[in-house]
């Protein structure tokens, strides 16, 4: 076997040696360059029109192994053309055409005509200068046209297509109208079939070149090296196949604006490209790699007749680095994107999507892309946090012609240690960016200090879980244009700590804040931008250290308007509902149970810096303590009202200008100045600076209870112009202790001067001072009144307090003693000068009970106690009192009238003495038929005007003076009696020591009209005047 291989090897080697020797002989002996070169030189002009030269032409085998080729060395084509870069069109070291050696040798020796069927071409080391002028004249049109003499030519080049083309070391320069190109070191190795007539080819090729430069119109491109290999069919400017382009250091500029800057680009191109119709179909596997950025493309690109390029291409990238990718974007496209100028970022992303549309001078195709970000970081100027994106899935709709939008399907982001999950949309990404976001995350509020505007003067602390939806323009968000921002959601907080303007502090252990912008709620005072709700566990608030409050179970909603406008008062509507609200303001402490509070603050129309305020309040158990001055609690309390601030006013009430509707149930009021507790079972009133309308009320003070209703008016003028505070009130009571009430209101409204005077008075002298500055009328309906320990019933009438004057006007009441009518005036001009006036009518009086009721009557009319029975008593009297209520006798004035019938004259010692002097019949009954007494009181003198006493058959006229020191001087005229004489009796002295003296009868004609003289007439006239004046005010 080994021998076989030995023999076989020797045989094959011998055969190869023979063949090689034969080839050498053919190439160097039979067909020598000396034979070929002249031959080709002789006939070359038949198919080349320009000047040419070449050194020698030889038949090669080994250099073109395994085929034979005709090689011409140092081939030069010279075609001088004006404007061309050189006269030399082409100069190469060698040009080889692959031929069929057998056919060539056979023809060379046996036929006159040599037909060179070239099916391969190799060109090495040369330069080509290709030129075409604007006039169409070019330097490469050197192929001679075919003519009829062709049949006569000795050598005919015939190629039906190349099987192989090799270029090596070729340098080319191309200059055409608006086009320039140059390329060095072109290497091409192409196999297949190339058909020159049809400009078509098929097969494989490998092309490389260095230092490529090209320019078409305003488009410039260059690169350091190109390697291109491919396989496919190229026919009539139509290529179909797969190529792979690899470039180094590519630059591309359009209008001197760099589009590609020194990039390495690799393109794998399974495609279908038609140069004539300027379109390209990109198939699966089409891949572009710029530096490390790869993108798979699939679709169609087509250049329209007007130069626009239509793109319909799907694309998908590998993982791209953000910074490197941004660096690929032409600078001119980024120069106006302010956001990117402020951005420092790193990270990777991946995109797939589609480019669809026309690329033209002023138009860009639409780009739809799904973007996935992974571990990205960003630092944005103006945002004081390091931003990080752990993972994000976005969809971008890039429309460089109009607006580019991004949909965020998933974004796991972090700002420092605050983490957020974000979904939403960002519209007009590269222009007026607007965001529609849903953010879930957590935040350390203390970290927000960097983004809270200083002018808000707000400091926050605590941790939050955020679930917010927001729609806003980035510019509006940065500038906090609240009216432009839409937002809603919740922020759950723990350990909340809010500090506003270093004067308002809010703390809470945990709760939920809700946000809604814009607001669905509206109000008539201002446009509401939004609302913030707070549901807190135990909120503690402090305002300037003076107001402190703790809110348990709070449900607070604050609707706000343009709160950042410092040119008008803050616009808010604050709704507060909570389990309890406790707090204090200075010395005021309050504890409110289940309050429901609504407070609206708004700028005044005339002066926006001045506040207006409306408020409603409703609560269950409420307690308000104002130091030791006031303690108020109520089972239920509600009010509503509004106030408009007027800085021009000095009085706080007029400054606030409040209107208030209030309802109190089961209230209790304790005041330092008023000792007894005031119980308020109910009160319903409306208060304005002009008037206070008490709709209804029920008040209990010690042993008094009453319903008070009516109006208090002229409040504003009372404060501003010192006019009287007026009131018209109805006072209904089952029981009123007048003494207690008087003690209650004692001295209200009296001046400081009077207070000083009060201080100088003895401690025990604390007379009742009627409130001043008021004009209040009380229509009283009192079923039972206690006055001076006497019980009065059905007290009706009008009680008026008018600027220091107390008027009991035509008060009607019933006591044990009588039916009474009283008009009384008590005027406390000063403490040691108190006016007291009475217009007192006692009808159907029981005389003894009257004296018990009003003991001073016994002083004025001492003889009254001598009578028994019912009478009618009229008294009008007045005096000034000292501070201890002692009468100033010099001011005492009064008049009284007593009318009675069938009175019993009591049989006492005085009467017995009188009867003795007057010689009354002892059997005479002490019945006084009628009695009509008029008396006047002046200082300490009581003048009893003559009055007639009829008793049985006796008539006597009594008159006299009674002094308040209990001395008297009376006279009795016996005017009718069984006796013949008419006697008179003077009674003087005192009741303890009366003196009796018979005197002439002084009034014998007084009650005898026919005998009356002028004096008697005057007496009766005065009596009538006195009586009429007294009775004038009696209500029948």
């Amino acid at each position, binding site marked *: 076997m080994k021998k076989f291989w030995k023999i076989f090897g020797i045989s094959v080697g011998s055969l190869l040696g023979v063949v090689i020797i034969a080839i050498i002989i053919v190439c160097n002996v039979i067909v020598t360059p000396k034979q070929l070169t002249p031959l080709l030189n002789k006939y070359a002009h038949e198919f080349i029109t320009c000047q040419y030269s070449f050194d020698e032409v030889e038949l090669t085998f080994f250099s073109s192994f395994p085929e034979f080729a005709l090689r011409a060395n140092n081939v030069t084509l010279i075609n001088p053309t004006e404007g061309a870069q050189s006269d030399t069109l082409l100069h190469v070291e060698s040009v080889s055409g692959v031929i069929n050696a057998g056919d060539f040798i056979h023809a060379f020796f046996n036929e006159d005509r040599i037909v060179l069927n070239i099916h391969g071409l190799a060109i090495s080391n040369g330069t080509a200068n290709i030129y075409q002028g604007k006039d169409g004249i070019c330097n490469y049109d050197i192929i001679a046209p075919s003519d009829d003499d062709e049949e006569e030519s000795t050598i005919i080049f015939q190629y039906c297509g190349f099987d192989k083309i090799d270029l090596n070391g070729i340098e080319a320069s191309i200059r055409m109208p608006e086009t320039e190109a140059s390329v060095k070191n072109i290497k091409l190795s192409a196999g297949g079939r190339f058909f020159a007539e049809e400009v078509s080819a098929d097969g494989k090729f490998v092309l490389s070149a260095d230092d490529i430069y090209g320019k078409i119109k305003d488009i410039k491109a260059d690169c350091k090296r190109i390697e291109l290999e491919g396989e496919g069919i190229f026919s009539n400017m139509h290529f179909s196949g797969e190529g792979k382009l690899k470039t180094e250091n590519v630059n591309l500029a359009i209008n001197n604006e760099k589009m590609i800057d020194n990039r390495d680009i690799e393109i794998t191109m399974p495609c279908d490209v038609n140069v004539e119709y300027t379109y390209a179909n990109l198939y699966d596997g089409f891949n572009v790699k710029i530096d490390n950025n790869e993108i798979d493309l699939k679709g169609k690109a087509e250049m329209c007749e007007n130069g626009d390029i239509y793109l319909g291409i799907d694309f998908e990238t590998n993982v791209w680095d953000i910074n490197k990718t941004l660096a690929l974007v032409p600078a001119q496209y980024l120069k106006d994107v302010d956001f990117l100028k402020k951005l420092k970022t790193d990270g990777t992303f991946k995109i797939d999507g589609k480019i669809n549309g026309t690329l033209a001078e002023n138009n860009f195709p639409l780009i739809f892309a799904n973007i996935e970000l992974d571990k990205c970081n960003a630092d944005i100027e103006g945002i004081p946090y390091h931003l990080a994106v752990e993972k994000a899935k976005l969809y971008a709709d890039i429309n460089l012609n109009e607006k580019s939008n991004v949909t965020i399907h998933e974004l796991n982001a972090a700002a420092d240690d605050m983490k957020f999950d974000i979904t939403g949309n960002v519209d007009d990404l590269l222009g007026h960016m607007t965001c529609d976001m849903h953010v879930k995350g957590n935040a350390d509020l203390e970290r927000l200090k960097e983004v809270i505007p200083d002018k808000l003067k707000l400091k926050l602390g605590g941790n939050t879980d955020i679930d917010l939806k927001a729609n806003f323009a980035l510019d509006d968000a940065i500038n906090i244009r609240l009216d432009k921002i839409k937002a809603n959601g919740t922020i759950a907080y723990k350990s909340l700590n809010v500090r506003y303007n270093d004067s308002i502090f809010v703390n809470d252990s945990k709760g939920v804040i809700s946000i809604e912008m814009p607001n669905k709620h509206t109000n008539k005072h201002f446009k509401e931008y939004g609302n913030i709700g707070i549901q807190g566990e135990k909120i503690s608030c402090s305002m300037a250290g003076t107001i402190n409050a703790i809110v348990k179970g709070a449900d607070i909603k604050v609707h706000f308007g343009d709160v950042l406008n410092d040119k008008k008062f803050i616009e808010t509507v604050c709704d507060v509902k909570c389990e309890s609200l406790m707090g204090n303001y200075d010395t005021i402490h309050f504890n409110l149970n289940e309050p429901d509070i609504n407070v609206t603050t708004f700028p005044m129309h005339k002066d926006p810096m001045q506040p207006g305020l409306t408020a409603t309040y409703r609560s269950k158990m409420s307690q308000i303590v104002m130091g030791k001055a006031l303690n108020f609690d109520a089972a239920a309390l509600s009010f509503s009202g509004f106030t408009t601030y007027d800085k021009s006013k000095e009085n706080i009430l007029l400054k606030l200008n409040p209107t208030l509707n209030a309802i109190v149930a089961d209230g209790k009021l304790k005041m330092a100045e008023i000792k007894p507790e005031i119980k308020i079972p109910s009160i319903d009133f409306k208060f304005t600076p002009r008037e206070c309308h008490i709709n209804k009320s029920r008040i209990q003070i010690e042993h008094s209870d009453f319903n008070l209703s009516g109006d208090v008016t002229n409040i504003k003028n009372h404060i501003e112009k010192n006019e009287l505070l007026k009131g018209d009130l109805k006072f209904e009571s089952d029981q009123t202790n007048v003494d207690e009430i008087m003690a209650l209101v004692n001295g209200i409204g009296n001046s400081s001067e009077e207070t000083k005077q009060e201080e100088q008075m003895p401690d025990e002298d604390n007379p009742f001072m009627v409130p001043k500055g008021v004009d209040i009328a009380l229509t009283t309906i009192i079923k039972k009144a206690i006055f001076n320990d006497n019980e009065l019933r059905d007290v009706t009438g009008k009680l008026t307090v008018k600027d220091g004057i107390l008027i009991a006007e035509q008060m009607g009441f019933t006591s044990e003693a009588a039916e009474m009518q009283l*008009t009384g*005036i008590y005027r406390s*001009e000063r403490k*040691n*000068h108190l*006016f007291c*006036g*009475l*217009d007192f009518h006692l009808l159907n009086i029981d005389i003894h009970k009257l004296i018990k009721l009003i003991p001073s009557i016994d002083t004025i009319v001492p003889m009254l106690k001598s009578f028994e029975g019912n009478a009618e008593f009229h008294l*009008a*009297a*007045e005096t*000034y009192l*000292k501070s201890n209520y002692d009468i*100033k*006798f*010099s*001011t005492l*004035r*009064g*008049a009284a009238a007593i009318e009675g019938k069938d009175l019993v004259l009591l049989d006492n010692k005085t009467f017995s003495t009188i009867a003795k002097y007057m010689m009354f019949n002892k059997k005479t009954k002490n019945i006084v038929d009628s009695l009509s007494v008029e008396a*006047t*009181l*002046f200082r300490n003198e009581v*003048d009893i005007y003559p009055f007639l006493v009829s008793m049985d058959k006796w008539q006597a006229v009594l008159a006299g*003076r009674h002094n308040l020191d209990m001395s008297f*001087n009376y006279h009795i005229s016996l005017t009718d009696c069984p006796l*013949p*004489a008419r006697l008179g009796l003077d009674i003087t002295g005192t009741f303890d020591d009366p003196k009796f003296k018979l005197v*002439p009868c002084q009034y014998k004609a007084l009650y005898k009209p026919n005998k009356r003289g002028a004096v008697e007439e*005057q007496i009766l006239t*005065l009596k009538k*005047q*006195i009586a009429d*004046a*007294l009775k*004038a*005010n009696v209500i029948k």
Partner: protein
Amino acid sequence: MKKTIICLLALATIALTGCDKLNTQKTFDKNLVIGKWQSGTEYWVYQVGGIGHTWDTSDDVAEEEAQDFYWEMDGNQLIITHMGEMGELIPKPYTLILLTSDKLQYRDNYNKTYSFTKVP
């Protein structure tokens, strides 16, 4: 005896009545009463038109706190009527005894005499 007593009483009555009728009524110039009169701590001011006011400083009353009255003079009769604020009328008739430019004296029906000195 009884008749004697009756006769004596009748004579006494006639005598008393006769004496009364013999009283001659003096007339005074009412202009003299105009002015301010003082009696101790008591002051009376009579003004033209029949009005006036009175006060007593011993009761801590000043002139501006004085109480008003009306007065009328007829012959030797002076009637001072105090009109109370409560509507009461307190007429006080007096009989003038002396009225000069600086002296005023009168008595009431109970023979109580009042003397005043005019003060500026």
